[in-house]
């Protein structure tokens, strides 16, 4: 069923059942997102996609559009700053030394930092010590960079048994991303690449991959994350 709603005051048409992120990008409006993967069930973990729906803050990836909805993405200074603050929070919660990160230039967190114009985090940088996990033969976990989006937990499974390979242990400040090293050892090279590409940050690192692309020719330098998100929709 076709419905009508407004995004930043502009009237748009959509099919009911679609989520706000997708409808916005079909209409040329980029909403930053870090856990959402188009075509996969929403995780709703990062809140980077927060927008105002009829004046209330909602995660755009988890919220289906409805007739008459008034959505504010960029028109409302408060929500724009709230998304920026959420990104800043992730940078101060982990240890993000981009110059020494294999994912730099391909990292969705970094690219999103640029889109929200983050220069510095308003929150104190925490410098929590986190141990790197080298146990598996195929990938290592650089835990400093995990943003707990749960993409790997939900979307990477052992191909034979369907068991989860990644899991999150503990809660709150004690959370840590864990890997089942035995299952991980059985991952095919394709699955390893899928997992390391799926991780929005440089936490799951394919042991065969290094700083492969020269600076200036890396993924988000060739085309920004925003342009990529919008382009997917226009295709």
């Amino acid at each position, binding site marked *: 069923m076709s419905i009508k709603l407004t995004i930043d005051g502009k009237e748009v048409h959509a099919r009911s059942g679609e989520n706000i992120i997708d409808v916005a990008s079909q209409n040329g409006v980029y909403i930053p997102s870090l856990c959402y993967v188009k075509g996969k069930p929403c995780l709703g973990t990062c809140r980077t996609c927060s927008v105002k729906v009829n004046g209330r803050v909602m995660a755009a990836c988890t919220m289906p559009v409805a007739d008459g909805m008034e959505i504010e993405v960029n028109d409302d200074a408060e929500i724009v700053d709230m998304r920026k603050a959420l990104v800043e929070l992730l940078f101060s919660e982990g240890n993000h*030394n*981009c110059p*020494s*990160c294999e994912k730099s*230039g391909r990292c969705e967190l970094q690219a999103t930092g640029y889109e929200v114009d983050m*220069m510095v985090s308003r929150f104190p*940088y925490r410098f929590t010590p986190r141990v790197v996990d080298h146990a598996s033969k195929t990938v290592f976990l650089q835990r400093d960079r995990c943003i707990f989006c749960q993409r790997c937990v939900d979307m990477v499974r052992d191909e034979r048994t369907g068991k989860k390979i990644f899991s999150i242990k503990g809660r709150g400040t004690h959370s840590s991303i864990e890997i089942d090293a035995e299952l991980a050892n059985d991952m095919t090279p394709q699955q390893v690449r899928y997992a390391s590409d799926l991780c929005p940050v440089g936490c799951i690192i394919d042991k065969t991959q290094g700083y492969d692309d020269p600076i200036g020719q890396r993924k988000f330098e060739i085309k*920004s994350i925003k342009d990529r998100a919008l382009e997917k929709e226009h295709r």
Partner: protein
Amino acid sequence: MSHSHNKNEILSHELPATPLDPKIKAERDAKIQVAMMGLCGCWGCTLSFLDMDERILGLLDKVAITRSSFTDVKRIPHRCTIGFVEGGVANSENIEILEEYRENCDILISVGACAVWGGVPAMRNVVPLEECFVEAYVESPTAVPGAKKVIPFHEDLPIITTKVLPLHEVVKIDYFIPGCPPDGDAIIKVLDDFVHGRGFDLPTEMNRYD
């Protein structure tokens, strides 16, 4: 603490020198004073300051560069309009210099990852300071065999801070240019905007964290 009166310390601008021609001095003093200071960094950001290249020439009728990699004086000799700083705070001397610099700059700008959040030197923040000292001086793999193991400590040596701090956790910082290092393009953009009264605006495509 007054810096020019530390024992045995003479700053380069206090050394005997032929006075500048009064006319040149007056012209220079009338310009926008710009400086760049380095704290705990690798001088990479200061090199980016040099990467403004010939583009700085176009600004020189409006701008006078006091302390920087162009001039190599230790401290700014007089008040500055715009101060850039590279590097984070890793010892007591960094704190002294930064506080004095802040007092003497109208606009203070953190340049580079080290200044903005600690950067490469802050990789030691996840290790207790004691272990860092032990690794560097006691169990150092490169120590001369048989040499006495000492952790340097002397009243003339700056005291190392427990953690490397971003500048804005020590003094007020007005603006931030991230990057390790940021390009000369970003620095000239910011400087040019201030000189022409436009205010700070680092466009998305110039922002980078590595």
